[in-house]
């Protein structure tokens, strides 16, 4: 609560990169958890609870590596929007279940590529975590692709999923914009085995393939925006109001003063 927040200056390049990865996971977990008990089916409630726990568990794995002696609440829970390095895609409010699945798909596709590139270069502590996380992400990605196939089975489903891609692809532009967070290219800093351009290109290929395999008409503009320079780069601490609202919702009014979350001030 009163503990000093972590500052970027005290983190080295790898740690700054991991902070961005961890923030991605944390914010995603928070969004998935909003579905618990209000999902489309009870079976899906159960799955979304698992995904939320996985993501928040992954975030914890990374936060613990870079906490410099701070506790988990200081590092994971109580940092302000400007201190966060997650992609703006992940802070976006889910307006319907279609958004959830499209974010699940776009993000987990990106994360898999990134972590594979981490696992190839990293030392033991980082590499073994990346491998562990990758094992679970495989199921997350499968969850997204299975649902995409199902959701487009009706006119309404196709309309909604198309709208989600149109809305969310432009917000994906910072998924690989790690240079801003790290201060240099993560591949030259020895964090990633491949340059981020290559990862982005691979991501684009998978995304385009998946979209074209489905009865969807997603505009070329939206796809182009997803691989252009980000207008708002979460990796540089630039965020949308959605993140402020999300962090405010974590830090509710009315808690007694000595809970870890009580000391947060936006």
């Amino acid at each position, binding site marked *: 609560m009163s503990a000093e927040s972590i500052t970027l200056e005290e983190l080295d390049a790898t740690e700054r990169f991991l902070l961005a990865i961890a923030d991605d996971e944390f914010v995603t977990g*928070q969004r998935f*958890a*909003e579905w*618990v*008990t*209000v*999902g*489309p*089916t*009870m*079976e*899906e*409630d*159960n*799955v979304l*609870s*698992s*995904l*939320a*726990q996985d993501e*928040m*568990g992954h975030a*914890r794995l990374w936060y613990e590596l870079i906490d410099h002696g701070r506790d*988990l*609440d200081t590092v*994971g*829970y109580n940092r302000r929007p400007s201190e966060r390095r997650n992609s703006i895609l992940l802070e976006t409010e889910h307006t*319907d*279940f279609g958004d959830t699945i499209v974010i699940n798909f776009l993000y987990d596709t990106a994360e898999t590529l990134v972590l594979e590139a981490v696992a190839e270069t990293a030392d033991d502590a980082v590499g073994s975590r990346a491998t562990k996380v990758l094992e679970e992400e495989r*199921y*997350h990605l*499968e*969850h997204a692709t*299975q*649902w995409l*196939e*199902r*959701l*487009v*089975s*009706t006119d*309404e*489903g196709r309309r*909604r999923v198309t709208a989600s891609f149109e809305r969310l692809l432009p917000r994906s532009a910072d998924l690989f914009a790690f240079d801003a967070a790290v201060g240099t290219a993560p591949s030259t800093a020895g964090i990633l085995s491949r340059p981020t351009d290559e990862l982005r290109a691979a991501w684009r290929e998978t995304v385009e393939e998946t979209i074209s395999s489905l009865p969807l008409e997603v505009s070329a503009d939206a796809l182009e925006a997803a691989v252009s320079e980000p207008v708002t780069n979460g990796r540089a601490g630039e965020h949308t109001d959605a993140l402020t609202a999300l962090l405010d*919702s*974590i*830090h*509710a009014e*009315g*808690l*007694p*003063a*000595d*809970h*870890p*979350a*009580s000391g947060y001030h936006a």
Partner: protein
Amino acid sequence: MKLEERIAAGQLIESGDELTDEYRELLCGIIQFTANSEFMGAFAESEWIPRAPSYQRKLALIAKNQDEIGHAQMQYQLAEDLGRDREQMLTSLLAGENGFGNAFHYPADEWIDIGLLAWMLDGAAMQLQHSLMKTSYGPYARIMKRVCREEEFHIRHGEHIVREYATGSREKQERLQAGVDRWWSRAVMFFGLSDSRSEKSERMDELGIKPKTNDELRQQYFDTYVPKLRNYGIDIPDENLYYDEETEQWEYTPPDWEEFNRIVTEGGPETQARLDRRRTAFEETAWVRDALEAYDGTTANRFANNITA
């Protein structure tokens, strides 16, 4: 042997056995009640997932809610096997036609309410669930074994929060006491009216569906919770509560049964808002179930998709 003779002889009834209409009706009634309570309980508590006061508490609360949803799902499935329709059951729950635990008709405005729901109210429900491990319907008894195993963790999670408050700042201690003042009579009421031996409860007993009476369960609850509450320095808000050594029974002020009846029939302060929110969620996700149905090409069960993660 006839059904009632088999039950009297201590045999378990299994799925596929021939049931009487009465047995099926009474059994489905209690299954729906326990399933609804799990579901509405999770729905009440999940309001606190976004704002759980620490990282670890948030993870624990998500895990707990996941368990409760799983319990509800298993029990609805059981009622489906007995011939009920899941969508129908949910629709009538959301229409306010079906009962669920009285506690979930009240708001949980403070974090300590979440602790007390998990410790005191899940603890009350556990007395019932534990007794149902001996119900005459085998599949239900086996589900209850699993449910009780997981509920142990929920109660521990709740007690952990209570202990944190009991040993914390003066503000926390005061909020804990105020919380127990709010929830105590609701916990006492959870077990239902004193055994007035309605015809229905007598039949539930004879058919071995509900092996323990309301009063037996309530006495058991006092046995466990009175010493625990006192141990945490909490005053129990009933000055007439004492253990009568002679009768070996707890004496207590009868709770406000009029309030109880009103709550379980007409709903409480939070009932309508919660049911409305859940109904909205149900309607907003209808398109997903429609898509599932179109994909599977079947109307058999719009709820049991087989997607896993």
